[in-house]
């Protein structure tokens, strides 16, 4: 009889209510080697982000931009990240597209004009995928960029949202994504409320867009509160160790 994504009592398959996020755990500065790094878990979706830069343009110098930094994003997902093992960890169409989306998101958030003719590399790898990979990647990368000390306008917080039986669901899990309903990914600059990226799969009637968008934005603000806590804690730890 198919899965009931939202029960009459308002519970989702995994016991959450419509607007609730999954459990988020994050850590900054996981690698000493890189300029900045972060690891995030959003439920069962786990992602690692590493940032290098700003540094001189690598490869052909002609790519350098005279007025701002070049943001280079690469996305990959581990072969073991999904139920069935993947053949190619990176370089497929989906990975390239995700890389472009991340680039667009971070070009909007990083104050690139402060570093003309330089390059910032963001590498993201998904270790386990259980829905909302784009959101997890953005959230991990935000922390990593901050860890690298690169100035940004604001946090970029991302969250997905779906739509089932007239109700918007925040932070979709893999089961909910696989059910095939409309799915919206939103990257938000929470302080200003500006949208860094908005993407949607499949059809959704325009009457409902507002509602789904609001659910995603609300969830993204929730993500922001949590990430803010992580950053403050990390800074505190760092200052304590400096004090010694």
């Amino acid at each position, binding site marked *: *009889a198919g899965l*009931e994504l939202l*029960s*009459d*009592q*308002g*519970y989702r*398959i*995994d*016991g*959450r*209510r419509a607007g*609730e996020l*999954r*459990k988020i755990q994050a850590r900054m500065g996981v690698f000493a080697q890189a300029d900045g790094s972060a690891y995030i878990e959003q*439920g*069962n979706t786990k992602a690692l982000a590493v940032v290098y830069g700003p540094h001189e343009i690598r490869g052909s110098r002609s790519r350098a931009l005279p007025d701002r930094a070049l943001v280079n994003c690469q996305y990959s997902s581990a072969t073991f990240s999904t*139920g*069935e093992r993947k053949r190619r960890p990176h370089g497929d169409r989906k990975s390239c597209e995700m890389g472009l989306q991340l680039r667009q998101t971070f070009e909007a958030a990083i104050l690139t004009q402060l570093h003309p003719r330089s390059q910032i590399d963001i590498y993201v790898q998904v270790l386990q995928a*259980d829905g909302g990979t784009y959101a997890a990647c953005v959230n991990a990368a935000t922390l990593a960029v901050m860890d690298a000390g690169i100035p940004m306008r604001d946090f970029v917080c991302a969250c997905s949202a779906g739509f089932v039986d007239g109700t918007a669901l925040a932070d979709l*899990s893999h*089961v909910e994504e696989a059910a095939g309903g409309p799915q919206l990914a939103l990257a938000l600059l929470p302080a200003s409320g500006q949208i860094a990226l908005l993407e949607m799969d499949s*059809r*959704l*009637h325009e*009457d*409902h867009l507002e509602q789904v968008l609001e659910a995603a934005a609300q969830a993204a603000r929730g993500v922001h509160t949590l990430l803010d806590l992580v950053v403050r804690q990390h800074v505190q730890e760092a200052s304590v160790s400096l004090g010694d």
Partner: protein
Amino acid sequence: MLRSKTFLKKTRAGGVVKIVREHYLRDDIGCGAPACSACGGAHAGPALELQPRDQASSLCPWPHYLLPDTNVLLHQIDVLEHPAIRNVIVLQTVMQEVRNRSAPIYKRIRDVTNNQEKHFYTFTNEHHKETYIEQEQGENANDRNDRAIRVAAKWYNEHLKRVAADSQLQVILITNDRKNKEKAVQEGIPAFTCEEYVKSLTANPELIDRLAYLSDEMNEIESGKIIFSEHLPLSKLQQGIKSGSYLQGTFRASRENYLEATVWIHGDKEEEKEILIQGIKHLNRAVHEDIVAVELLPRSQWVAPSSVVLDDEGQNEDDVEKDEERELLLKTAVSEKMLRPTGRVVGIIKRNWRPYCGMLSKSDIKESRRHLFTPADKRIPRIRIETRQASALEGRRIIVAIDGWPRNSRYPNGHFVKNLGDVGEKETETEVLLLEHDVPHQPFSQAVLSFLPRMPWSITEEDMKNREDLRHLCVCSVDPPGCTDIDDALHCRELSNGNLEVGVHIADVSHFIRPGNALDQESARRGTTVYLCEKRIDMVPELLSSNLCSLRSNVDRLAFSCIWEMNHNAEILKTRFTKSVINSKASLTYAEAQMRIDSAAMNDDITTSLRGLNQLAKILKKGRIEKGALTLSSPEIRFHMDSETHDPIDLQTKELRETNSMVEEFMLLANISVAKKIHEEFSEHALLRKHPAPPPSNYDILVKAAKSKNLQIKTDTAKSLADSLDRAESPDFPYLNTLLRILATRCMMQAVYFCSGMDNDFHHYGLASPIYTHFTSPIRRYADIIVHRLLAVAIGADCTYPELTDKHKLSDICKNLNFRHKMAQYAQRASVAFHTQLFFKSKGIVSEEAYILFVRKNAIVVLIPKYGLEGTVFFEEKDKPKPRLAYDDEIPSLRIEGTVFHVFDKVKVKITLDSSNLQHQKIRMALVEPQIPGINIPPNVADKALTAPGGKKRKLEK
């Protein structure tokens, strides 16, 4: 909101993929008791009652809530639906299991839980921190769920004790599983079986009848003989179907013979589409409409379908031997080529039981509580029910549900659900035919009525936005007499440039029925208004159908107008659609309108407008017929009702006037114009109507019949068919043409609604139009409402909504509409048949002239033009010597003792009402002329025999 611990649930699907899912357990799920301080906060939706005292159970006199397990919910839903049963906790575990096992019951339980009065509370135990349990090693899913139910019951009892120690509230587990009950009692949970509990409710003895009769395994051993072979488990069936040793199909019982059935095999293979099942053991407890698995028998055991009519008349269990004897009877010697693939049912894939209408056949033993129930539908076996009120139910129409069919029982077991009323009563019979045709006819619910506009209603500024004021136009409506739901009106006027402006104004129902609300959902479900002989089952509430939407004269009404500019040759120069306000100047009947057109004395605006319309309609009709539109005919009858008793006093065939076709012509034109417009705007999701061309073989009967009268009917195109029908006249037999047209109607296919994105054949065969839809009757057809909405969006008068632009949803709507239309038609026919019976009951015996429509092997089908009544004259009767019959398929003709019957021959028949079977009264026809010795009944004897039951009838009539 507190989120509690996270943990992983690992399952293996297909043994390959490892699925890892999170499961958040919560501590904020309320228990549903309003006084509960621990759960805090109000609960949305219906909740339990604070002091459930009204259930006076002798088993547990203290206040209590009930907690049924899955099987109780699945089997005893009729008990739970009874208003006396309240304050029930439905666990999520139970809901999920019900959802997986039976969709109809899931729907019913959801309806019950949504009913505030019932105080059913759904407890989400699987997400609750304290009631969630994990499946243990070696424990199967069923045991785990049973344990989950017990854990929840225990939690509830402890929780309630903590919260309201003084009120002694208890939760009682209701389970029919003995082991489960024992375990529960061990764990200190009060538990009863459903039967124990219901019997303890001394205040409501009628509940006992509603108990589903479930045989315990214990009893089964005692009551001896096993009649049927076991059904194979589903896993084995699926294996067998995959390997090809079994076939899956829909079981269709035979109407004529209870020992015979066919199974329609699902699949695309042309051969062996149908498998014959013969004999009670091979039928193996399958019931009509079930999805079954069958095994083909070896070729040596194949049989031919018998032509014998057999009714199940047995009363006891011991009839099985008799059945076997009867089975032998079926196996008459037949030629090799008559043999059909024969099989036996090995298992049931899905039961499709529903509640059945019928009557009780009381047991011969006076004190017996077990009785047999005979369903009205002959394809359904008789059902054994247990009831104490048998004498009260005798002679009543009742509803019974099947509970199960054990291996040792000749009949399925069931339980009584509802009493409809006395048999033969008009209300009861109407109810029965509505139920049997699945016509939703309950009064509109409060939720639906809440979306009606407040009275007194008037047109506001807001309504006038996007709307044209056409109140100055001279609009009038033309309808059959007594029509209260007027959904169309017309006007015609001359423009300054000499052209004519013609407007069709349709009631703007979509203004009142907004998408998605309860009113819209209910009308979508009903799909169409059903017109029975003395009753109308409205699709929309009466306030709309007979008042606000009805385009009555001299009141302002909202309309959707389709306005053309035409020249005097009825060529369309311009088409325009607009929402409007009109004020009809007159509501006329067809006869009144005809009179106005014909009388030279009248020259007012309305009359000139009508004349203009009539003129144009004639040209339009001519054009349409030239294109090949068919004019078909079907005998339609109307009853003249007695205004007080509502009994039919006379029948009359419908009369057709020029004005009928005038209105029809403009409605067709409007529908076609609208269809073009919405298809142009929404190529993917326009709701259209098509009428497929029939396959040539359908016409065989017509061509052969015409040939016997030396006429030629060409059927290669609609045009040639129309032309040849027009030419088919016989000077000495004027009625022949109508008969041919009636026959041609029978050859046609059904017209259906469809969504333009899902199909590519749009042609309407009967109207010879490349595209067609329904726009003109939104009060009585839901399809028109959708079309109105589409058109409103297309002209920018309204906004779209999600379901409107979803072709899958639209195609689901079409499916439902097609089904409802078909059922409405059947219900209408059944209603006419019932009233015909009433009519002839009062009329006594009549002899009338009739024409032969079809010739069958042992009968002729005749049509009586005077009543538009069709009936069958049988030449073989049970206790009489069989006459010599010779049937010729080629001509078609039937020779009986030297008299030959051809199609269209004129005969004289005697019409009587046969009420020997109280449940299936029917019109019986017997031949009077031509005289055939041994066939005709001598008139005087017949009169006596037929007046005898008259006395009894009179009593019923009263």
